[in-house]
């Protein structure tokens, strides 16, 4: 088991390297200037040259990449051009804020989607199935930024039940989950974020449950005279590994932060940070965030694989 984990961690290294090469190149292929934030719109060529030199952006690209990589290996992710804050601080704060959203959106999506899918799968082909499947298709198809705006209009603007934007009445510093005045800022973004995973999970669970129900062992269970409830329990447990695998992927996506949802709610998470870094061409933040997010994604997949093998011993033996 430990060897398996170590091997998976070793696999992560070339992935992270590949991701950093690709993201470094992409940033430079895109038109625009990494020093745009510090430069006024009418800066002269001479000004730009002096500032580029001061920030080290006048060196050849491969050289810039190697310098950056060398620093990253020693744990130094550099400093944001726009804010001058250490990139590692920017990324860790944003990631923590996104993780908070994901921590609520994932269980919400998992339980709702699983229950919906289990019901639909158990009654496959009947009207319950059609209603639930229809709802799942709606969940997957609604653009979540649109849903976010609609929720804001209804619950924040018309009824003033919940805040429209931001993270806490005084910003994310000192955000206290145990106080309703803070926690209420989570409600709308969590629901918005959970909607697509709910749809995906409901459909995955439905398919898995329907498939397992058609297997021979289910017939055997019935033949032995087990109650329908006990049979369903066995079916649900057997459908679980597939659902967990899909959930793991969704968790990875949610941790990456949704640029659209976080922008609609001005939630200071990793998606929001990334979109700002893209617009400003804040290269150090962009590189740092993408690298950290790709590592998080790899780690999430590893955890999911381990979870699956815990649920289903057949995977471990394979």
């Amino acid at each position, binding site marked *: 088991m430990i060897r398996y984990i170590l091997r998976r961690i070793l696999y992560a290294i070339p992935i992270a390297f590949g991701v950093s090469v690709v993201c470094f190149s992409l940033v430079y292929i895109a*038109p*625009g*200037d990494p*020093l*745009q*934030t*510090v*430069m*006024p*719109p*009418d*800066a*002269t*060529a001479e*000004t*730009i040259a*002096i*500032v580029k030199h*001061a*920030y080290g952006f006048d060196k050849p690209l491969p050289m810039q990449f190697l310098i950056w990589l060398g620093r990253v290996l020693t744990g130094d992710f550099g*400093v944001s051009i*726009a*804010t*001058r*804050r250490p990139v590692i601080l*920017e990324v860790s*704060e944003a990631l923590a804020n996104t993780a908070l959203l994901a921590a609520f959106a994932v269980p919400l999506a998992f339980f709702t989607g699983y229950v919906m899918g289990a019901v639909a799968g158990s009654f496959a082909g009947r009207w319950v199935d059609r209603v639930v499947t229809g709802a799942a298709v709606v969940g997957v198809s609604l653009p979540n930024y649109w849903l976010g*705006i609609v929720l*804001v*209009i209804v619950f*924040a*603007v*018309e*009824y*003033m*039940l919940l*805040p*429209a*934007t*931001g*993270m*806490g*009445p*005084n*910003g*994310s*510093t000192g955000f206290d989950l145990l106080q*309703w*005045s803070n926690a209420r800022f989570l409600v709308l973004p969590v629901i918005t974020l959970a909607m697509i995973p709910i749809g995906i999970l409901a459909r995955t669970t439905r398919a898995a449950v329907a498939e397992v129900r058609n297997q021979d062992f289910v017939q055997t269970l019935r033949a032995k005279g087990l109650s329908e409830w006990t049979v369903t329990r066995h079916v649900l447990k057997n459908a679980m590994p597939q659902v967990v695998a899909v959930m793991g992927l969704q968790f990875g996506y949610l941790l990456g932060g949704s640029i659209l949802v976080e*922008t*609609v*709610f*001005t939630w*200071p998470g990793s998606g*929001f*940070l990334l979109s*700002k870094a893209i*617009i*400003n*061409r804040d290269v150090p933040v962009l590189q740092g965030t993408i690298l950290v997010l790709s590592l998080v994604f790899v780690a999430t997949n590893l955890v999911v694989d381990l979870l699956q093998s815990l649920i289903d011993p057949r995977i471990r033996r394979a």
Partner: protein
Amino acid sequence: MTRPDLFRSVFMLALGAGLSLAGPAALAGGTLVVGMTAGDLPITTGNPDQGFEGYRFVGYNLYDSLVLWDLSKSDKVADIKPGLATEWQVDEANPKRWIFKLRQGVKWHDGCEFKADDVVWNLSRSTDEKAPEFDPSQFAQARSYLGNFAGVEKIDDHTVAFETKVPDSLFPYEISYVMMISPCRAKEVNYNWAEYALRPSGTGPYLYDRAVPHQRMEFVPNADYWDKARVPKQDRLVLVPMPEASTRTAALLSGQVNWIEAPSPDAIDRLKSAGMQIVTKIYPHNWTYQLNFVKGPFVDKRVRQAANYALNREDMKELLNGLMLEGYSTVPPSTPYYGHPLIYKYDPEKAKALLKEAGCLPCNVTFAISTSGSGQMQPLPMNELAKSQLDAAGFEVKLQPMDWNSLLELTRAGVDKYPDVNAINVSRQTQDPFNALIRHVWTAQWAPKGSNWGHYGNPEVDKLVGQIFGEFNQEKRLALLTKLNETMNEEAVMIFVAHDLNPRGLSPKVHGFVQAQSWFQDLTPVTVEP
């Protein structure tokens, strides 16, 4: 109490509880919470980033410049007034030397006294690469305004003398954009600008209190501000970056903020029906197409004039729900040097005739435009409408959309690097004579050296610019500037389209705001009902 009222009260109580944890209990002046269009909080180390919105909310609140802008009136275009300097005049013996008398008894927020040495230190911070206080980001920010700066020296503790490269009658305008920060605090943090950003010290009407990176910045009044009339009347000023227009609108309607910048035109009716105040005012801004004078149809003056005749600016105004003023010149008519320029009223027949005369029918042109950006208003629908009107008069316009950052790069690089682009759609501030007129037509400003993107060149205009810089009599200079504006219209140096009306949405609880005809605004008289 209705349900929404109940929840609103609960929310306000919660907000109050949060605020009382954050600082001293709120007093009578209330808390002004501003939703800015900026994508992020402006930097606090002197001249801010995030365009003039950064200057408006952070720059001129934490800091003063030697020369400030008079933002107390709304009935005329804002002009400069004494700031940290009480008076200034050009040296009679040397037109390249300006003497500034400094205000006495002014203290930095950190308690140190403001003196002539501080002015010298501040200029070397943004110009002298070898000085320990040199800051490349400040160099970049201040450079545009210090193009003509040659040096500064202390005469005594309360007098400094500036040297300019060429005689420059507009120097007081240029120095008005350069913020003065405290050398005491900079030395205390050992020139660590990241540290300074968290503990900024200026002489301005507000003191920095706290910030949550990317989310909010909070200022409190500086009770010891040297201009007693401008000690802030509200208890706290909170700045929140909200780049999405729909987010700003929702935040205002739900009571999370009580002031938003630039609500989108289609949200205005909704805001009004909810009882919000919508304030608008013409200000020194233009939305035009700057043209290519090196290659392509716009080299011919008749084609430039045809494009100006082809535009129906009233339709454009309707498109924007009335939130613009028809643009017929580089500067809006309330500008002192507007004069009596040739006006290109909508006349598509005349446009077609001019194109025929110039032998360019259909006239193929390519416009580089942005999808969004500072001061760009509603770039996509506006450009689509302009294209359809130009096409109807005989042009064949190809729109080349790109993101704001890319358009800025194209703008800075100039026409040499992009010879096939015939026009760029970059809105401009026209707050002072140099930025309003000179930089667009002076050959010394040919991009990439400056803002004359399309390399307009005209010996007569260059001569006129030289006269303006050398004319220290204000009235005579005004006459020369008027002549320059009229010439620029006659030459149709741009396709003039619109001037923004700078809409803002204010909660009905906000009182005392006087909207100046300026990119900058004075928030100090504003109070907010609880």
